[in-house]
């Protein structure tokens, strides 16, 4: 199988370049990550992040034939050859397919992605009704792989100010949580022409999410909550 992979080692290379590989895959190499590990047996200088190899840790996000995705859950069968692999767009490249995720996590932290509840802790758990719990479906499953945020042009243009789809999905996850008591503060923080309203609903995030989540829907629900409290 033929691959064309983005290579850049800041210690050696002046400029990034694309390197071609022609690799004989094993029948057991079902996923793109298997193929990449196969390539590493030939060329161990190729650098990439990976950990759980089953789509849970979110480490191996990359741009696969022009679309962001997780290598470990992308089947090699059906990929157009040569398979063009690039690092996630819009973030600084550290080396080869590894990007610097600092800006992404900065935005994630900025939405206070944890439960805020100043009531005294109850004897048992803070209980939710099945309906309240169902509100969180589609909001809590995010693995923070950054595929959506780095596919978003608004994040490319304003990565320092726009929270991005992943961060906003997390913001909604806590706005939707019946146990969270900071709804007003969270909405105040997001009501900003940059932090939230850079989203123009082009839905690249929905198109790209390897977990099949819908950040645009969550963002629209945040806007809906703001309309509800203002109008």
């Amino acid at each position, binding site marked *: 199988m033929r691959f064309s992979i983005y290579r850049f080692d800041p210690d050696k290379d002046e400029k990034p370049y694309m390197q071609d590989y022609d690799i004989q895959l094993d029948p057991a190499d079902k996923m793109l990550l298997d193929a990449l590990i196969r390539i590493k047996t030939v060329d161990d200088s190729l650098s990439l992040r990976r950990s759980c190899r089953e789509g849970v840790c979110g480490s191996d996000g990359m741009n696969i034939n022009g679309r962001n995705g997780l290598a470990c859950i992308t089947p090699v069968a059906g990929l157009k050859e040569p398979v063009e692999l690039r690092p996630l767009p819009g973030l600084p490249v550290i080396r080869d397919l590894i990007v610097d995720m600092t800006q992404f996590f900065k935005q994630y932290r900025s939405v206070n992605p944890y439960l805020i509840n100043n009531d005294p802790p109850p004897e048992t758990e803070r209980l939710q009704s099945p309906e309240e719990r169902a509100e969180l479906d589609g909001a809590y499953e995010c693995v923070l792989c950054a595929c959506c945020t780095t596919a978003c*042009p*608004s994040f490319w*243009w*304003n990565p*320092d*100010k726009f929270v991005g789809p992943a961060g906003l999905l997390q913001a909604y996850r806590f706005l939707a949580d019946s146990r969270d008591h900071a709804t007003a503060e969270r909405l*105040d*923080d997001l*009501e*900003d*022409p*940059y*932090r*939230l*309203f*850079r989203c*123009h609903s082009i839905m690249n995030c929905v198109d790209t999410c390897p977990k099949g989540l819908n950040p645009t829907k969550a963002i629209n629900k945040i*806007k809906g909550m*703001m*309309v509800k409290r*203002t*109008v």
Partner: protein
Amino acid sequence: MANRIVTGAHYGLIDWLAQRVTAVVMAIYILLAITLLLISSPDDYSSWKTIFSNQWMRIVTLIFFLSLCWHAWIGVRNILMDYIHKTSIRLTIQVLVIFSLFFYAVWAIEIMWG
């Protein structure tokens, strides 16, 4: 001053909402205008003049133009916020956009009532 990232303007909802409402207003007006033009099919200056001599037509058209200006302001400002990152240049272009939209609105009034 160090290059601090400043956000937290605490506005944006009304603009976002206004963009949607003005879009609906314009869509309704365009449907109305097309229907009206199909019915009366004006083919010379005087028949156009007759359509716009109706005070209601003028008022509805003015609402359309104001919606258009408001909608355009929000849209153009969004584009400027996306692509023009130097505050002084962005502010200058924004002021120019406001002046030109104001000019167009006054011009529309002048055409209809002048």
